[in-house]
Protein backbone atom coordinates (compact mmCIF):
# COMPACT_ATOMS: atom_id res chain seq x y z
CA UNK A 1 0.00 0.00 0.00
CA UNK A 2 1.29 3.48 -0.87
CA UNK A 3 1.68 6.09 1.83
CA UNK A 4 -1.33 7.88 0.38
CA UNK A 5 -3.30 4.64 0.49
CA UNK A 6 -2.30 4.15 4.12
CA UNK A 7 -3.51 7.63 5.03
CA UNK A 8 -6.85 6.90 3.33
CA UNK A 9 -7.09 3.65 5.26
CA UNK A 10 -6.40 5.53 8.52
CA UNK A 11 -9.24 7.88 7.67
CA UNK A 12 -11.65 4.98 7.07
CA UNK A 13 -10.58 3.56 10.44
CA UNK A 14 -11.28 6.93 12.09
CA UNK A 15 -14.78 6.98 10.62
CA UNK A 16 -15.43 3.49 11.97
CA UNK A 17 -14.15 4.60 15.39
CA UNK A 18 -16.71 7.42 15.45
CA UNK A 19 -19.51 5.09 14.34
CA UNK A 20 -18.71 2.37 16.87
CA UNK A 21 -18.36 4.84 19.75
CA UNK A 22 -21.71 6.39 18.90
CA UNK A 23 -23.32 2.94 18.72
CA UNK A 24 -21.77 2.00 22.05
CA UNK A 25 -22.79 5.24 23.79
CA UNK A 26 -19.57 5.20 25.82
CA UNK A 27 -15.85 4.70 25.25
CA UNK A 28 -12.63 6.56 24.60
CA UNK A 29 -12.51 8.90 21.60
CA UNK A 30 -9.37 11.03 21.84
CA UNK A 31 -6.66 8.38 22.13
CA UNK A 32 -8.38 6.12 19.61
CA UNK A 33 -8.45 8.83 16.93
CA UNK A 34 -4.95 10.01 17.83
CA UNK A 35 -3.41 6.58 17.25
CA UNK A 36 -5.20 5.70 14.00
CA UNK A 37 -2.15 6.49 11.87
CA UNK A 38 0.23 4.43 14.02
CA UNK A 39 -2.17 1.45 14.01
CA UNK A 40 -2.63 1.69 10.25
CA UNK A 41 1.13 1.77 9.72
CA UNK A 42 1.58 -1.27 11.98
CA UNK A 43 -1.16 -3.51 10.61
CA UNK A 44 -0.82 -2.54 6.92
CA UNK A 45 2.91 -1.93 6.51
CA UNK A 46 5.00 -3.16 9.45
CA UNK A 47 3.72 -6.29 11.22
CA UNK A 48 4.35 -9.81 9.97
CA UNK A 49 0.97 -11.36 10.62
CA UNK A 50 -1.74 -13.50 9.03
CA UNK A 51 -5.24 -12.23 9.82
CA UNK A 52 -6.76 -15.54 8.70
CA UNK A 53 -4.36 -17.47 10.96
CA UNK A 54 -4.21 -15.25 14.05
CA UNK A 55 -2.31 -17.83 16.14
CA UNK A 56 0.45 -18.27 13.50
CA UNK A 57 3.53 -18.92 15.68
CA UNK A 58 5.82 -16.76 13.53
CA UNK A 59 3.72 -13.60 13.89
CA UNK A 60 5.04 -10.39 15.36
CA UNK A 61 3.42 -9.76 18.76
CA UNK A 62 1.53 -6.55 19.38
CA UNK A 63 0.59 -5.72 22.97
CA UNK A 64 -1.83 -2.85 23.51
CA UNK A 65 -1.04 -1.69 27.03
CA UNK A 66 -3.52 1.19 27.30
CA UNK A 67 -6.50 -1.02 26.53
CA UNK A 68 -8.99 1.83 26.67
CA UNK A 69 -8.11 2.90 23.13
CA UNK A 70 -9.33 -0.49 21.87
CA UNK A 71 -11.79 1.12 19.41
CA UNK A 72 -8.80 1.87 17.15
CA UNK A 73 -7.43 -1.65 17.67
CA UNK A 74 -10.79 -3.29 16.90
CA UNK A 75 -11.41 -1.12 13.84
CA UNK A 76 -7.91 -1.80 12.51
CA UNK A 77 -8.19 -5.56 13.13
CA UNK A 78 -11.52 -5.61 11.28
CA UNK A 79 -10.08 -3.66 8.34
CA UNK A 80 -7.10 -6.04 8.29
CA UNK A 81 -9.49 -9.01 8.02
CA UNK A 82 -9.45 -10.57 11.50
CA UNK A 83 -13.24 -10.40 11.78
CA UNK A 84 -16.13 -8.76 9.88
CA UNK A 85 -16.42 -4.98 10.05
CA UNK A 86 -20.14 -5.42 10.73
CA UNK A 87 -19.20 -6.68 14.20
CA UNK A 88 -17.71 -3.30 15.16
CA UNK A 89 -21.14 -2.00 16.12
CA UNK A 90 -21.35 -4.57 18.93
CA UNK A 91 -18.62 -2.74 20.91
CA UNK A 92 -19.37 -2.77 24.66
CA UNK A 93 -22.65 -4.66 24.17
CA UNK A 94 -23.71 -7.73 26.15
CA UNK A 95 -22.28 -10.90 24.63
CA UNK A 96 -19.93 -9.04 22.29
CA UNK A 97 -16.39 -10.20 21.56
CA UNK A 98 -15.49 -6.51 21.56
CA UNK A 99 -15.26 -5.96 25.29
CA UNK A 100 -14.98 -2.42 26.68
CA UNK A 101 -11.35 -3.19 27.34
CA UNK A 102 -9.77 -5.92 25.20
CA UNK A 103 -9.90 -9.51 26.46
CA UNK A 104 -7.44 -11.99 24.99
CA UNK A 105 -9.59 -15.09 24.86
CA UNK A 106 -12.61 -13.25 23.44
CA UNK A 107 -11.34 -12.15 20.04
CA UNK A 108 -8.82 -13.37 17.45
CA UNK A 109 -5.72 -11.24 17.08
CA UNK A 110 -5.40 -10.12 20.70
CA UNK A 111 -2.17 -11.05 22.49
CA UNK A 112 -3.38 -10.05 25.93
CA UNK A 113 -6.09 -8.63 28.14
CA UNK A 114 -5.51 -5.02 29.07
CA UNK A 115 -7.11 -1.99 30.64
CA UNK A 116 -5.49 -1.46 34.03
CA UNK A 117 -2.60 0.81 33.06
CA UNK A 118 1.10 0.18 33.37
CA UNK A 119 1.17 -3.60 32.82
CA UNK A 120 1.54 -3.96 29.07
CA UNK A 121 5.21 -3.17 28.68
CA UNK A 122 6.12 -5.87 31.22
CA UNK A 123 4.07 -8.43 29.30
CA UNK A 124 5.83 -7.41 26.09
CA UNK A 125 9.14 -7.85 27.95
CA UNK A 126 8.02 -11.36 28.96
CA UNK A 127 7.19 -12.18 25.34
CA UNK A 128 10.56 -10.88 24.15
CA UNK A 129 12.34 -12.93 26.84
CA UNK A 130 10.42 -16.07 25.81
CA UNK A 131 11.22 -15.40 22.15
CA UNK A 132 14.87 -15.03 22.98
CA UNK A 133 15.02 -18.35 24.87
CA UNK A 134 13.62 -20.07 21.77
CA UNK A 135 15.73 -17.97 19.37
CA UNK A 136 12.64 -16.76 17.55
CA UNK A 137 12.84 -14.07 14.86
CA UNK A 138 9.57 -12.27 15.54
CA UNK A 139 9.41 -8.76 16.96
CA UNK A 140 7.38 -7.55 19.93
CA UNK A 141 5.62 -4.19 19.71
CA UNK A 142 4.11 -2.58 22.77
CA UNK A 143 1.76 0.36 22.36
CA UNK A 144 1.41 2.43 25.48
CA UNK A 145 0.17 5.82 26.59
CA UNK A 146 2.10 8.65 28.16
CA UNK A 147 -0.25 8.64 31.17
CA UNK A 148 0.81 5.14 32.12
CA UNK A 149 4.39 6.34 32.48
CA UNK A 150 3.10 7.34 35.94
CA UNK A 151 2.93 3.64 36.91
CA UNK A 152 5.71 1.88 38.75
CA UNK A 153 5.08 -1.32 36.84
CA UNK A 154 6.06 0.48 33.61
CA UNK A 155 9.46 1.47 35.00
CA UNK A 156 10.07 -2.00 36.44
CA UNK A 157 9.66 -3.27 32.88
CA UNK A 158 11.80 -0.48 31.41
CA UNK A 159 14.66 -1.52 33.72
CA UNK A 160 14.27 -5.22 33.00
CA UNK A 161 14.24 -4.70 29.22
CA UNK A 162 17.41 -2.62 29.56
CA UNK A 163 19.04 -5.27 31.72
CA UNK A 164 18.42 -8.06 29.21
CA UNK A 165 19.05 -5.78 26.18
CA UNK A 166 15.88 -6.97 24.48
CA UNK A 167 16.57 -5.74 20.95
CA UNK A 168 13.46 -7.39 19.48
CA UNK A 169 11.26 -5.21 21.69
CA UNK A 170 9.93 -1.90 20.37
CA UNK A 171 7.67 0.26 22.51
CA UNK A 172 5.62 3.01 20.88
CA UNK A 173 4.43 5.70 23.25
CA UNK A 174 1.36 7.77 22.37
CA UNK A 175 2.70 11.14 23.52
CA UNK A 176 -0.52 13.15 23.37
CA UNK A 177 0.06 15.02 26.66
CA UNK A 178 -3.39 14.33 28.14
CA UNK A 179 -4.73 12.01 30.78
CA UNK A 180 -8.05 11.87 32.63
CA UNK A 181 -7.29 14.54 35.22
CA UNK A 182 -5.66 16.97 32.79
CA UNK A 183 -2.30 17.56 31.12
CA UNK A 184 0.35 14.94 31.86
CA UNK A 185 2.89 17.55 32.91
CA UNK A 186 0.42 18.89 35.51
CA UNK A 187 -0.77 15.55 36.84
CA UNK A 188 2.70 14.06 37.30
CA UNK A 189 5.54 15.58 35.28
CA UNK A 190 7.16 13.02 32.96
CA UNK A 191 9.80 14.97 31.06
CA UNK A 192 12.54 14.49 30.06
CA UNK A 193 11.10 11.16 28.87
CA UNK A 194 13.65 10.44 26.14
CA UNK A 195 16.58 11.00 28.50
CA UNK A 196 15.00 8.80 31.14
CA UNK A 197 14.67 5.88 28.73
CA UNK A 198 18.17 6.41 27.37
CA UNK A 199 19.50 6.28 30.93
CA UNK A 200 17.91 2.81 31.24
CA UNK A 201 19.72 1.51 28.13
CA UNK A 202 17.02 2.13 25.55
CA UNK A 203 17.39 3.48 22.02
CA UNK A 204 14.93 6.39 21.65
CA UNK A 205 13.44 7.86 18.47
CA UNK A 206 11.00 10.79 18.45
CA UNK A 207 8.55 11.14 15.58
CA UNK A 208 5.33 12.78 14.52
CA UNK A 209 2.75 10.07 15.15
CA UNK A 210 0.53 11.23 12.30
CA UNK A 211 3.25 10.81 9.70
CA UNK A 212 2.88 7.21 8.58
CA UNK A 213 6.17 7.20 6.67
CA UNK A 214 7.97 8.33 9.83
CA UNK A 215 6.33 5.52 11.81
CA UNK A 216 7.54 2.99 9.24
CA UNK A 217 11.05 4.46 9.15
CA UNK A 218 11.28 4.45 12.95
CA UNK A 219 10.29 0.79 13.24
CA UNK A 220 12.84 -0.06 10.55
CA UNK A 221 15.45 1.69 12.62
CA UNK A 222 14.27 -0.17 15.72
CA UNK A 223 14.63 -3.53 13.96
CA UNK A 224 18.14 -2.58 12.91
CA UNK A 225 19.09 -1.81 16.52
CA UNK A 226 20.70 -5.02 17.70
CA UNK A 227 21.90 -4.27 21.21
CA UNK A 228 18.99 -2.67 23.05
CA UNK A 229 15.23 -2.14 23.06
CA UNK A 230 13.78 0.86 21.21
CA UNK A 231 11.24 3.42 22.35
CA UNK A 232 9.46 5.41 19.65
CA UNK A 233 7.89 8.51 21.15
CA UNK A 234 5.03 9.27 18.77
CA UNK A 235 3.88 12.85 19.25
CA UNK A 236 0.18 12.85 18.48
CA UNK A 237 -2.84 15.10 18.74
CA UNK A 238 -5.63 13.54 20.79
CA UNK A 239 -8.84 13.46 18.78
CA UNK A 240 -6.88 13.99 15.52
CA UNK A 241 -9.11 14.51 12.51
CA UNK A 242 -12.16 15.80 14.38
CA UNK A 243 -11.68 19.52 14.95
CA UNK A 244 -13.80 19.91 18.07
CA UNK A 245 -12.06 16.99 19.79
CA UNK A 246 -8.46 17.86 19.02
CA UNK A 247 -6.32 18.65 22.07
CA UNK A 248 -9.29 18.69 24.46
CA UNK A 249 -8.76 16.26 27.34
CA UNK A 250 -12.50 16.11 28.01
CA UNK A 251 -12.74 13.72 25.05
CA UNK A 252 -10.42 11.21 26.70
CA UNK A 253 -13.20 8.96 27.95
CA UNK A 254 -16.30 10.21 26.14
CA UNK A 255 -17.93 9.37 22.79
CA UNK A 256 -19.29 11.93 20.32
CA UNK A 257 -22.58 13.38 21.48
CA UNK A 258 -21.74 13.68 25.17
CA UNK A 259 -19.53 16.73 25.72
CA UNK A 260 -20.69 20.29 25.09
CA UNK A 261 -18.09 22.29 23.23
CA UNK A 262 -18.11 25.84 21.88
CA UNK A 263 -17.87 24.71 18.28
CA UNK A 264 -20.55 22.05 18.52
CA UNK A 265 -23.02 23.09 21.20
CA UNK A 266 -25.61 20.75 19.67
CA UNK A 267 -24.48 17.46 21.16
CA UNK A 268 -26.74 15.48 18.83
CA UNK A 269 -24.90 16.91 15.83
CA UNK A 270 -21.42 15.95 16.99
CA UNK A 271 -21.24 12.53 15.35
CA UNK A 272 -22.50 13.89 12.04
CA UNK A 273 -20.06 16.80 12.14
CA UNK A 274 -17.19 14.45 12.98
CA UNK A 275 -17.97 12.09 10.12
CA UNK A 276 -18.46 14.97 7.67
CA UNK A 277 -15.08 16.41 8.65
CA UNK A 278 -13.38 13.05 8.21
CA UNK A 279 -15.02 12.44 4.83
CA UNK A 280 -13.88 15.87 3.66
CA UNK A 281 -10.33 15.27 4.87
CA UNK A 282 -10.00 11.79 3.32
CA UNK A 283 -6.26 11.07 3.20
CA UNK A 284 -5.23 14.58 4.05
CA UNK A 285 -4.48 14.03 7.71
CA UNK A 286 -0.80 14.59 7.61
CA UNK A 287 1.71 15.93 9.98
CA UNK A 288 3.28 19.32 10.14
CA UNK A 289 6.51 17.61 9.16
CA UNK A 290 5.31 16.86 5.63
Amino acid at each position, binding site marked *: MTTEGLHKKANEIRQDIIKMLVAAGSGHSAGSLGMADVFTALYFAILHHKPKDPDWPGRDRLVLSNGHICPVLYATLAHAGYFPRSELKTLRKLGSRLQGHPHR*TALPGLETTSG*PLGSGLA*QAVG*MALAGRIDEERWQVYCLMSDGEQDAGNTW*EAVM*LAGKYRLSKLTAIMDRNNIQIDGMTEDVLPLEPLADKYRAFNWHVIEIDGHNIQMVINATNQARATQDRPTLIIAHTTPGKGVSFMEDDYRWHGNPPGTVETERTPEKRQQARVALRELRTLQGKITSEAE
Partner: protein
Amino acid sequence: MDTHLNPNRLQANVEQVPIRNGYGAGLVKAGEKNRNVVALCADLTESTRTEDFAVRWPERFVEVGVAEQDLATVASGMAATGKIPFVTSYATFSPGRNWEQIRTTIAYNDVPVKVIGSHTGVSVGPDGATHQALEDIAIMRALPNMVVIAPCDYLEAERATLAALKHPGPVYIRLAREATPVVTTKATPFKLGQSQEFRSGTDLTIVACGSLVYEALMAADVLSKKHVEARVLNMATVKPLDGKALLHAARETGAIVSVEEHQITGGLGGAVAEFLAAHAPVPQEFIGVQDQFGESGAPEELLEKFHLKSQDIVTAAQRVLDRKQKQPAIPRVCVVPKSTRRTPPKRAARTRTRKKAVQ
Protein backbone atom coordinates in the same frame (compact mmCIF):
# COMPACT_ATOMS: atom_id res chain seq x y z
CA MET B 1 -6.45 -45.83 56.59
CA ASP B 2 -5.74 -46.12 52.86
CA THR B 3 -3.45 -43.16 52.58
CA HIS B 4 0.26 -43.66 53.10
CA LEU B 5 1.38 -41.62 56.07
CA ASN B 6 4.67 -41.25 57.89
CA PRO B 7 4.57 -43.87 60.70
CA ASN B 8 6.54 -41.47 62.95
CA ARG B 9 4.14 -38.56 62.42
CA LEU B 10 2.96 -38.48 66.04
CA GLN B 11 6.35 -39.19 67.62
CA ALA B 12 8.43 -36.51 69.33
CA ASN B 13 11.34 -37.22 66.98
CA VAL B 14 9.31 -36.74 63.79
CA GLU B 15 11.41 -35.51 60.87
CA GLN B 16 10.93 -31.78 60.24
CA VAL B 17 11.63 -30.06 56.90
CA PRO B 18 10.52 -26.64 55.58
CA ILE B 19 7.58 -26.95 53.16
CA ARG B 20 9.34 -24.56 50.74
CA ASN B 21 12.12 -27.15 50.23
CA GLY B 22 9.63 -29.41 48.49
CA TYR B 23 8.83 -26.65 46.03
CA GLY B 24 12.52 -26.29 45.15
CA ALA B 25 12.83 -30.03 44.48
CA GLY B 26 9.57 -30.10 42.54
CA LEU B 27 10.61 -27.14 40.40
CA VAL B 28 13.79 -28.91 39.30
CA LYS B 29 11.76 -32.03 38.44
CA ALA B 30 9.29 -29.86 36.52
CA GLY B 31 12.21 -28.31 34.65
CA GLU B 32 13.46 -31.77 33.72
CA LYS B 33 10.04 -32.90 32.55
CA ASN B 34 9.23 -29.87 30.43
CA ARG B 35 11.69 -27.57 28.68
CA ASN B 36 9.09 -24.79 28.57
CA VAL B 37 9.21 -24.43 32.35
CA VAL B 38 10.83 -21.12 33.32
CA ALA B 39 11.32 -19.61 36.77
CA LEU B 40 11.15 -15.97 37.82
CA CYS B 41 12.04 -14.51 41.16
CA ALA B 42 12.00 -11.09 42.84
CA ASP B 43 15.31 -10.98 44.70
CA LEU B 44 14.51 -13.94 46.98
CA THR B 45 15.97 -16.78 44.95
CA GLU B 46 17.59 -18.68 47.78
CA SER B 47 14.92 -18.35 50.44
CA THR B 48 12.10 -19.28 48.06
CA ARG B 49 14.14 -22.31 46.96
CA THR B 50 14.35 -21.26 43.31
CA GLU B 51 18.14 -21.40 43.44
CA ASP B 52 18.70 -24.98 42.25
CA PHE B 53 16.64 -24.32 39.13
CA ALA B 54 18.42 -21.00 38.49
CA VAL B 55 21.86 -22.60 38.75
CA ARG B 56 20.94 -25.51 36.53
CA TRP B 57 19.13 -23.56 33.82
CA PRO B 58 20.35 -19.94 33.96
CA GLU B 59 18.90 -19.26 30.49
CA ARG B 60 15.45 -20.26 31.76
CA PHE B 61 15.63 -18.15 34.89
CA VAL B 62 14.67 -14.46 35.06
CA GLU B 63 15.69 -12.30 38.00
CA VAL B 64 13.35 -9.29 37.97
CA GLY B 65 14.66 -7.59 41.11
CA VAL B 66 12.47 -6.22 43.89
CA ALA B 67 9.59 -5.72 41.47
CA GLU B 68 6.64 -7.99 42.20
CA GLN B 69 4.29 -6.31 39.73
CA ASP B 70 6.87 -6.99 37.05
CA LEU B 71 7.21 -10.55 38.33
CA ALA B 72 3.55 -11.27 37.56
CA THR B 73 3.28 -9.35 34.30
CA VAL B 74 6.55 -10.52 32.74
CA ALA B 75 5.46 -14.08 33.59
CA SER B 76 2.11 -13.43 31.93
CA GLY B 77 3.88 -12.38 28.74
CA MET B 78 6.10 -15.45 28.80
CA ALA B 79 3.09 -17.71 29.38
CA ALA B 80 1.25 -16.11 26.45
CA THR B 81 4.20 -17.19 24.34
CA GLY B 82 4.20 -20.87 25.30
CA LYS B 83 6.25 -20.87 28.49
CA ILE B 84 5.11 -22.26 31.85
CA PRO B 85 6.41 -19.72 34.37
CA PHE B 86 6.78 -20.44 38.09
CA VAL B 87 7.05 -17.14 39.97
CA THR B 88 8.14 -16.91 43.56
CA SER B 89 8.34 -14.35 46.31
CA TYR B 90 7.03 -14.01 49.84
CA ALA B 91 3.26 -14.23 49.76
CA THR B 92 2.74 -10.78 51.29
CA PHE B 93 4.44 -9.37 48.15
CA SER B 94 3.22 -11.90 45.59
CA PRO B 95 0.21 -12.34 45.47
CA GLY B 96 -0.05 -9.48 47.99
CA ARG B 97 1.47 -6.45 46.28
CA ASN B 98 0.79 -7.60 42.71
CA TRP B 99 -2.75 -8.91 43.12
CA GLU B 100 -4.30 -6.73 40.40
CA GLN B 101 -1.64 -7.80 37.91
CA ILE B 102 -2.37 -11.43 38.79
CA ARG B 103 -6.10 -10.80 38.45
CA THR B 104 -5.97 -9.13 35.03
CA THR B 105 -2.94 -10.53 33.27
CA ILE B 106 -2.89 -14.08 34.70
CA ALA B 107 -6.34 -15.14 35.96
CA TYR B 108 -8.59 -13.22 33.53
CA ASN B 109 -6.05 -13.67 30.75
CA ASP B 110 -6.15 -17.39 31.63
CA VAL B 111 -2.46 -18.14 31.10
CA PRO B 112 -0.57 -20.96 32.86
CA VAL B 113 1.45 -18.96 35.37
CA LYS B 114 2.13 -20.74 38.67
CA VAL B 115 2.30 -18.24 41.51
CA ILE B 116 4.24 -19.54 44.51
CA GLY B 117 3.81 -17.62 47.77
CA SER B 118 6.39 -18.48 50.37
CA HIS B 119 6.49 -17.42 54.03
CA THR B 120 2.84 -17.73 54.94
CA GLY B 121 1.40 -17.86 58.45
CA VAL B 122 2.54 -16.47 61.80
CA SER B 123 5.11 -19.26 61.96
CA VAL B 124 7.33 -17.10 59.72
CA GLY B 125 8.36 -15.90 63.19
CA PRO B 126 10.86 -13.14 64.04
CA ASP B 127 10.38 -11.12 60.80
CA GLY B 128 7.01 -10.04 62.14
CA ALA B 129 3.62 -9.22 60.69
CA THR B 130 4.87 -7.48 57.52
CA HIS B 131 6.26 -10.80 56.33
CA GLN B 132 3.59 -13.16 57.68
CA ALA B 133 0.99 -13.70 54.94
CA LEU B 134 -2.41 -14.42 56.48
CA GLU B 135 -4.71 -13.26 53.68
CA ASP B 136 -3.33 -14.98 50.58
CA ILE B 137 -5.88 -17.82 50.39
CA ALA B 138 -8.73 -15.31 50.57
CA ILE B 139 -7.45 -13.05 47.80
CA MET B 140 -6.47 -15.92 45.51
CA ARG B 141 -9.50 -18.12 45.87
CA ALA B 142 -11.71 -15.16 44.97
CA LEU B 143 -10.20 -15.16 41.47
CA PRO B 144 -11.98 -17.08 38.70
CA ASN B 145 -9.76 -19.61 36.84
CA MET B 146 -7.37 -19.81 39.83
CA VAL B 147 -6.52 -23.09 41.58
CA VAL B 148 -5.33 -22.74 45.21
CA ILE B 149 -3.15 -25.36 46.93
CA ALA B 150 -1.76 -25.34 50.49
CA PRO B 151 0.51 -28.40 50.91
CA CYS B 152 0.91 -29.90 54.39
CA ASP B 153 4.62 -30.83 54.22
CA TYR B 154 7.60 -30.67 51.91
CA LEU B 155 6.77 -33.95 50.19
CA GLU B 156 3.27 -32.75 49.38
CA ALA B 157 4.71 -29.43 48.18
CA GLU B 158 6.82 -31.30 45.66
CA ARG B 159 3.78 -33.25 44.46
CA ALA B 160 1.71 -30.05 44.30
CA THR B 161 4.39 -28.38 42.19
CA LEU B 162 4.28 -31.21 39.66
CA ALA B 163 0.46 -31.20 39.71
CA ALA B 164 0.57 -27.45 38.99
CA LEU B 165 2.80 -28.14 35.98
CA LYS B 166 0.21 -30.55 34.58
CA HIS B 167 -2.74 -28.21 35.16
CA PRO B 168 -3.24 -26.09 32.03
CA GLY B 169 -4.29 -22.88 33.83
CA PRO B 170 -3.07 -20.58 36.60
CA VAL B 171 -2.29 -22.04 40.03
CA TYR B 172 -1.40 -20.59 43.43
CA ILE B 173 0.67 -22.64 45.89
CA ARG B 174 1.24 -21.39 49.44
CA LEU B 175 4.38 -22.42 51.25
CA ALA B 176 5.73 -21.98 54.77
CA ARG B 177 9.15 -20.98 56.00
CA GLU B 178 9.85 -23.00 59.14
CA ALA B 179 10.64 -26.69 59.44
CA THR B 180 7.30 -28.54 59.51
CA PRO B 181 6.75 -32.14 60.68
CA VAL B 182 6.60 -34.55 57.75
CA VAL B 183 3.26 -36.35 57.86
CA THR B 184 3.20 -37.94 54.41
CA THR B 185 5.62 -40.27 52.64
CA LYS B 186 7.08 -40.41 49.16
CA ALA B 187 4.32 -42.91 48.32
CA THR B 188 1.40 -40.70 49.37
CA PRO B 189 -0.76 -39.97 46.32
CA PHE B 190 -1.82 -36.45 45.34
CA LYS B 191 -4.60 -35.40 43.05
CA LEU B 192 -5.58 -31.80 42.38
CA GLY B 193 -9.02 -31.08 43.83
CA GLN B 194 -9.10 -34.21 45.92
CA SER B 195 -8.80 -34.22 49.69
CA GLN B 196 -7.31 -37.11 51.60
CA GLU B 197 -8.63 -38.79 54.71
CA PHE B 198 -5.56 -38.86 56.97
CA ARG B 199 -7.51 -40.33 59.85
CA SER B 200 -10.90 -41.99 59.97
CA GLY B 201 -13.57 -41.13 62.52
CA THR B 202 -17.28 -40.57 62.87
CA ASP B 203 -17.70 -38.12 65.78
CA LEU B 204 -16.51 -35.01 63.98
CA THR B 205 -14.29 -33.99 61.04
CA ILE B 206 -11.23 -31.78 61.25
CA VAL B 207 -10.65 -30.18 57.84
CA ALA B 208 -7.12 -28.79 57.67
CA CYS B 209 -4.60 -27.53 55.15
CA GLY B 210 -0.96 -26.53 55.11
CA SER B 211 1.40 -26.63 58.05
CA LEU B 212 -1.38 -27.16 60.62
CA VAL B 213 -2.42 -30.57 59.27
CA TYR B 214 0.16 -31.96 61.70
CA GLU B 215 -1.54 -30.14 64.61
CA ALA B 216 -4.88 -31.56 63.44
CA LEU B 217 -3.49 -35.10 63.56
CA MET B 218 -2.04 -34.48 67.03
CA ALA B 219 -5.40 -33.15 68.21
CA ALA B 220 -7.23 -36.18 66.81
CA ASP B 221 -4.83 -38.40 68.74
CA VAL B 222 -5.59 -36.56 72.00
CA LEU B 223 -9.34 -36.72 71.30
CA SER B 224 -9.09 -40.44 70.67
CA LYS B 225 -7.80 -40.92 74.22
CA LYS B 226 -11.00 -39.17 75.35
CA HIS B 227 -13.03 -41.62 73.23
CA VAL B 228 -13.80 -39.08 70.55
CA GLU B 229 -12.92 -40.30 67.07
CA ALA B 230 -12.16 -37.40 64.74
CA ARG B 231 -11.88 -37.77 61.01
CA VAL B 232 -9.02 -35.69 59.62
CA LEU B 233 -9.27 -34.43 56.04
CA ASN B 234 -6.19 -32.93 54.42
CA MET B 235 -7.80 -30.33 52.16
CA ALA B 236 -4.61 -29.45 50.29
CA THR B 237 -6.56 -28.07 47.34
CA VAL B 238 -8.60 -25.21 48.79
CA LYS B 239 -9.96 -24.44 45.34
CA PRO B 240 -11.60 -26.30 43.73
CA LEU B 241 -12.87 -27.66 47.02
CA ASP B 242 -13.50 -31.39 47.40
CA GLY B 243 -17.24 -31.01 47.97
CA LYS B 244 -17.94 -34.73 47.83
CA ALA B 245 -15.65 -35.48 50.77
CA LEU B 246 -17.15 -32.57 52.71
CA LEU B 247 -20.68 -33.82 52.12
CA HIS B 248 -19.70 -37.26 53.39
CA ALA B 249 -18.00 -35.66 56.39
CA ALA B 250 -21.05 -33.55 57.23
CA ARG B 251 -23.44 -36.45 56.78
CA GLU B 252 -21.37 -39.05 58.58
CA THR B 253 -19.84 -37.00 61.41
CA GLY B 254 -22.24 -34.03 61.75
CA ALA B 255 -19.62 -31.54 63.01
CA ILE B 256 -16.67 -29.70 61.44
CA VAL B 257 -13.57 -27.97 62.75
CA SER B 258 -11.61 -26.10 60.08
CA VAL B 259 -7.90 -25.52 60.70
CA GLU B 260 -5.54 -23.18 58.87
CA GLU B 261 -2.69 -20.75 59.47
CA HIS B 262 -4.61 -17.92 57.80
CA GLN B 263 -7.23 -15.33 58.67
CA ILE B 264 -10.57 -16.92 59.43
CA THR B 265 -12.06 -14.46 56.95
CA GLY B 266 -12.01 -15.93 53.48
CA GLY B 267 -9.73 -18.88 54.11
CA LEU B 268 -10.24 -22.64 54.08
CA GLY B 269 -12.81 -22.44 56.88
CA GLY B 270 -14.76 -19.87 54.91
CA ALA B 271 -14.67 -22.04 51.80
CA VAL B 272 -15.89 -25.06 53.78
CA ALA B 273 -18.65 -23.02 55.43
CA GLU B 274 -19.81 -21.53 52.12
CA PHE B 275 -20.11 -25.01 50.69
CA LEU B 276 -21.75 -26.75 53.63
CA ALA B 277 -24.16 -23.89 54.37
CA ALA B 278 -25.57 -24.43 50.89
CA HIS B 279 -25.54 -28.21 50.80
CA ALA B 280 -25.45 -29.77 54.29
CA PRO B 281 -25.31 -27.29 57.18
CA VAL B 282 -23.69 -28.67 60.34
CA PRO B 283 -22.04 -26.90 63.30
CA GLN B 284 -18.56 -25.65 62.45
CA GLU B 285 -15.76 -24.18 64.56
CA PHE B 286 -12.89 -22.23 63.03
CA ILE B 287 -9.22 -22.47 63.98
CA GLY B 288 -7.30 -19.61 62.35
CA VAL B 289 -6.15 -16.08 62.99
CA GLN B 290 -8.98 -13.93 64.36
CA ASP B 291 -8.86 -10.70 62.34
CA GLN B 292 -5.44 -9.70 63.69
CA PHE B 293 -1.95 -9.11 62.34
CA GLY B 294 0.88 -11.32 63.54
CA GLU B 295 3.99 -10.14 65.39
CA SER B 296 7.62 -11.07 66.02
CA GLY B 297 8.47 -14.09 68.11
CA ALA B 298 9.54 -17.70 67.89
CA PRO B 299 7.27 -19.74 65.58
CA GLU B 300 6.09 -22.03 68.40
CA GLU B 301 5.36 -19.07 70.69
CA LEU B 302 3.30 -17.44 67.96
CA LEU B 303 1.32 -20.57 67.16
CA GLU B 304 0.41 -20.74 70.86
CA LYS B 305 -0.39 -17.05 71.15
CA PHE B 306 -2.71 -17.15 68.15
CA HIS B 307 -4.39 -20.37 69.34
CA LEU B 308 -3.31 -22.51 66.42
CA LYS B 309 -1.97 -25.53 68.40
CA SER B 310 -3.39 -29.01 68.82
CA GLN B 311 -4.83 -28.16 72.25
CA ASP B 312 -6.81 -25.32 70.64
CA ILE B 313 -8.16 -27.75 68.06
CA VAL B 314 -9.16 -30.14 70.88
CA THR B 315 -11.05 -27.32 72.62
CA ALA B 316 -12.77 -26.36 69.38
CA ALA B 317 -13.70 -30.02 68.83
CA GLN B 318 -15.35 -30.14 72.23
CA ARG B 319 -17.29 -26.95 71.49
CA VAL B 320 -18.53 -28.25 68.16
CA LEU B 321 -19.54 -31.59 69.72
CA ASP B 322 -21.65 -29.70 72.29
CA ARG B 323 -23.37 -27.80 69.51
CA LYS B 324 -23.90 -30.97 67.53
CA GLN B 325 -25.69 -32.63 70.46
CA LYS B 326 -28.02 -29.67 70.88
CA GLN B 327 -29.30 -29.75 67.31
CA PRO B 328 -31.24 -32.43 65.45
CA ALA B 329 -29.24 -34.67 63.17
CA ILE B 330 -29.36 -33.82 59.46
CA PRO B 331 -31.05 -36.37 57.20
CA ARG B 332 -28.92 -39.38 56.30
CA VAL B 333 -29.88 -39.19 52.65
CA CYS B 334 -27.98 -36.51 50.89
CA VAL B 335 -27.75 -35.85 47.16
CA VAL B 336 -24.32 -34.90 45.90
CA PRO B 337 -24.83 -31.83 43.72
CA LYS B 338 -23.29 -31.87 40.27
CA SER B 339 -21.27 -28.78 40.98
CA THR B 340 -19.14 -30.52 43.63
CA ARG B 341 -16.62 -32.06 41.32
CA ARG B 342 -13.54 -33.53 42.90
CA THR B 343 -11.30 -32.47 40.06
CA PRO B 344 -10.94 -29.14 38.27
CA PRO B 345 -13.23 -28.83 35.27
CA LYS B 346 -11.82 -30.31 32.08
CA ARG B 347 -10.53 -27.66 29.76
CA ALA B 348 -10.27 -27.61 26.03
CA ALA B 349 -6.82 -28.46 24.71
CA ARG B 350 -6.60 -24.99 23.22
CA THR B 351 -6.77 -22.42 26.00
CA ARG B 352 -7.75 -19.71 23.56
CA THR B 353 -11.39 -20.67 23.39
CA ARG B 354 -13.37 -17.99 21.76
CA LYS B 355 -16.90 -16.81 21.91
CA LYS B 356 -19.03 -16.89 18.83
CA ALA B 357 -19.56 -13.59 17.11
CA VAL B 358 -22.60 -11.60 18.05
CA GLN B 359 -24.53 -10.52 15.00
